[in-house]
Structures are given as structure tokens and as C-alpha cells.
């Protein structure tokens, strides 16, 4: 069988290995899509509302290689939502000593 279909066997073997690797790292893989939105929302919020930097500076400061598909800064509520890899995340400024923190539930992005 192996001798008759060497490529198919190799492909199947690679697929099995990849599946095993994915299963082994499932917790990491599951969390991965949240990173970009969470990083952007949290660090933008702190840049803007803790350090007090201008919005344009903070937008450049948090920029990563992965693109965002949505971003909304609500200056009245001091609340920042960012969306990337299909996951929205929200950070909220809480007070002068507490700074910003990621919320458990993201606030939906406004319709554009």
C-alpha cells in the first residue's frame, strides 16, 4: 500500500501529525485570535487615557503586522474596542489610579 501510493501516505501522515499538534496546542490555538484585539484595545486605552498621548500617536503605537477589521474609541466613556482575526475586545478606563482593563465581554462596534 505504502509502495503503491507513497505521496498519499505521506500526506496522510502529515495531516495526522498536524492534527495531533493542533490537539496538543488547542488551548493556545483557541486563544490566539483574541490576542490582536485585546492587545490593541488595552494598550491603546492606556496610551490614550493613562499616559495622555494624542489619538494619532496611540494608533501608531499599537500598530502590529496583523490588520484590524474594526476599531472604536469612545472618548466620553474612555472605552476602546478593537477587532482582529474575527474577535472583538474592549478595554475600559476605570479611574486615575486603576487605569485601563480588558472587559470580560466586548462592547459591540458601532454600525458604520
Amino acid at each position, binding site marked *: 500500500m505504502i509502495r503503491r501510493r507513497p505521496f498519499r501516505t505521506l500526506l496522510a501522515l502529515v495531516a495526522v501529525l498536524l492534527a495531533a499538534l493542533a490537539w496538543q496546542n488547542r488551548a493556545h490555538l483557541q486563544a490566539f485570535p483574541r490576542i490582536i484585539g485585546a492587545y490593541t484595545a488595552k494598550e491603546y486605552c492606556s496610551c490614550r487615557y493613562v499616559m495622555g498621548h494624542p489619538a494619532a500617536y496611540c494608533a501608531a503605537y499599537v500598530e502590529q503586522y496583523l490588520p484590524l477589521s474594526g476599531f472604536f474609541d469612545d472618548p466620553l466613556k474612555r472605552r476602546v474596542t478593537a477587532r482582529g482575526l474575527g474577535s472583538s475586545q474592549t478595554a475600559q478606563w476605570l479611574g486615575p489610579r*486603576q487605569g485601563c482593563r480588558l472587559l470580560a465581554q466586548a462592547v459591540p462596534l458601532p454600525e458604520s
Partner: protein
Amino acid sequence: MPVSPLRRLGLALAVVSCAGLARAERWPGAAWPVAEVAPSPAIAALQAYAFPARDEASRSGVRSDALLVIRDGQVVYERYAGPTRADTPHLTWSVSKSLLAAILGVAYGEGRFQLEAPVARYYPAFAAHPQVKVGHLLNWASGLAWQEDYEYAPLKSSVVAMLYTRGRADMAGFAAAHAADAAPGTRFRYSSGDSNVLAAALQGMVGAAAYPDYPWTALFEPLGIRSAVWETDAAGTFVGSSYSYMTARDLARIGLLMQRDGRWGERQLLPRAWVAFNRTPFANYRGQAAQPGEAVPGGHWWLNAELPGAPRPWADAPADTFAALGHWGQALYVLPGAKLVVVRYADDRDGSYRHNQLLKLVLAAFAEQLQP
């Protein structure tokens, strides 16, 4: 009872030397005293290294946001760049770890904990690791299988998961859930998880009621620090690993406290033994020849220590130099012998900045000539 003349002389000398000390010693009040220093080629060289033209598009090279030099309690150099100003509470990243250690030092002086005590005594969620002691965490030697890399291994990075995804609701709990892969106290492995477990243990040490204000009541207010922000996770634990903010001038106050062995004016805020522990290399640390320039871990501070068989990490700085260091170039350097404190805030996005080079230029510009 007659007092011997010799003893009387000794007492008189002690009084005189104390008075002399009090006169000579400068401390910041609400503001820092500023000393006028004439421009010099050495200062120009320092400035050229720390503040080259910033390229916001490529974000390459040395990108200092702030550089503040304190000599013997007075500002001798101060400059800001980018949007950072004298009143900006700048993110310190992992400098926070050493600030947490200073706060723990106050609690230590109050007798709230022992270095030899199991962490689980103060943080019950750490019960799965009964052999790990408070001192082990301060040496980043818990033995937990922590993965600190972030930018190059984001998938498996424990730090990224702790700050942004799986661990963010309870960062210390997330760290505590890691398995051990070395015996406690035997192996150095830099870990933001260890630092956040310490931040959670502090709550057990000082009590839940005092905890939310403790960094301020214990350390910031006595030092006159007014700009500090310290973010917490959803469990209310200070993100001791990463998320403290303050102005460069306020961070320099902690530097001066450390330069003067934990004393602030008349008050011994941190026990001298605590500062000595901060400045003692972790006994089981093995310097890696492959990474020259890497400072030696002490008790949640970084040391320019000369270990047997290895040169000191920053060759042009004195061996008594120690520092709090953070991501993207944040640094608080303390040079007790030279009576210098240096705060650097930055946004270094590549690895081109060198601690040794900055310290060499600071020393050339501001170290006082020793009187013969």
C-alpha cells in the same frame, strides 16, 4: 556616672558627622532640586546617543522618550522626546517588577511575611506548589514551566496569554496553574507569572482592606510620588509584572531610595537587609556566555555583578550598578558609588539600544571627579 573623654569625643564626632550629612544630603520635596550643569562635549555625546532623529515609519534605532539623570539628589540632566513630557505617567513595563519588590520591602519591614515562608501561606491558590517560598519568586526561581517569550513566539507565550487572553481575568491564578518542571530555588527562569503571584501574595500579607491602596500608602506617598497608576486584573490583583506608570521624576525617587539603601530622609523605609537581598545575585544563577550584556538576576532587581568566570554584564559601569528593566527600553539605573540615578523611558522596537553604552556616556558626562 562619669563619661570617658574618649567616649565623649566619639559622641561629639558622631553628632558633627550626622549634622554634616544632613547638610550635604539633598532630597526632593514636592519638586526635585535642579543643579545647573554647563554644556560639555560629553553631554552632547550622551544626547546624540540617546536622542537621534526619530523615524516614526520604520521605528528603528534608539528611541528614548525620556532621559533623567540625578546626581546626589539633584537633577543634572533632563530631556523628553516624542509625545512624552515631564508630567507624562509613562508605562514602565517590567520595571514594575522591581517597584513591586520595593513595596514588598515595606511590608517586609512591617513584619508581614518571611522570605522563607511558603507562598501558599499568603496566597492559598498556590497550594499546588507547597515547596515554593516567597524568596524563590523574588529570584524568578519558582521552577514553574513558564514561557516568557512574546514577540517571537506569541502562540505559546505565557505572558501574552496572561495579559491578553486566557490569563487576564486572574493572572496570578493563571500562573499558579502552570506545572513545575524544576525544583523551586534551583533554576533561574525570568517569569512575569512569578511576579504576579507575588502581587497576589501581597494581598494575603497586608489584608484585603489595605491592599488596593497599599502601593500608595506604603511607598508612593512617603516618597512624594503623585503620578503613579497601577492597573489591576479583573480579580483586583495588581499587574505587578507589567502595568505601573509614573513620571520619570517620580520613578527617580525610587532610584534615590535604593541608592541610599532604602532610607528616605530620616526614615528607613525599606530595611537595609531587604535592599541587600535585592542586590544579591541569585545563588544558582549561571551566567550565559552566549548572551553578553545580560544583567544578573537579584531579588527582583538586575545586577551588574561580576560572577566567577564571567565579566560583569555592563563593562563600563561600576560593579555596584543595579537596575529595574522593562520591555522596549524602560530602565531605572542606580549607581550608588557614583551617587547617580538614571531614568530612561523609551519606545525601542529593535534590539539596538545598549545599557552599557548609555551608562558609559552618563558616567563620562556626570560622574564627579574623585578628590585626591
